[in-house]
């Protein structure tokens, strides 16, 4: 499955790009699976996802937990805890 990934704040800085389209291999079912797979793609990804527990995710611009299924997702975003307001 092909999906658009978007990165923000220090996740974006560590990976070195704001977005990309990736071909997700079969067997990657949840957001947590996706983070683990991304972390294996290279040093910059490993650095970004070192402490995957703190990273938040959104599927199609809605907050999700790390056990959320990614099937059918058009856009998945990864970012640090938010600091707006």
């Amino acid at each position: 499955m092909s999906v658009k990934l978007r990165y923000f704040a220090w996740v974006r800085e560590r990976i070195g790009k704001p977005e990309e389209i990736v071909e997700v291999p079969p067997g990657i079912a949840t957001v947590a699976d996706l983070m683990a797979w991304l972390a294996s793609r290279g040093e910059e990804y490993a650095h970004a996802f070192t402490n995957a527990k703190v990273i938040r995710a959104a599927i199609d611009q809605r907050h999700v937990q790390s056990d959320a299924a990614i099937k059918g997702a058009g856009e998945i975003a990864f970012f640090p805890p938010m600091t707006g307001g």
Partner: protein
Amino acid sequence: MKATVRLQREPFDVAVEAAELTRANKDIGALVTFTGICRSTENDQPIAALTLEHYPGMAESEIERHVAEAIERWPLLGVTVIHRYGRIMPGEDIVLVVTGSSHRQAAFAAAEFLMDYLKTRAPFWKQVEKAGGKSWVDAKAIDETATERWSTPRRGREAAG
């Protein structure tokens, strides 16, 4: 019921925004305005500027969802939320929440609710520029606690005042 959500790079005028809400509904007897401002120091070190990054599209829809929830929970007669992004200098405004209601309790509660959610759920990230370089602001546990107090299930409208 006038509800406005705006994301913008430019500064906003608190007085203009407040007047617009009260003009739109003469039953507003209580108006609360909250303004979040860029401080000049962080941990006793001077700040040169703050840069706010956001997730376009999701930031608007998250704020709109929370405004809709506030309207559901309190008898509001008007709401305005403006959040700036981009580079902001110390002393400049960052965020504005205006809530109008017949009486003060609902206006106060809804403004606090919206600010607590903006802090922890709206996809914005602050980067601070100091003499030593740039760094991302860490999320504070106290903000998370403040947000959680609103998630207790409640029935019907509250603090009707």
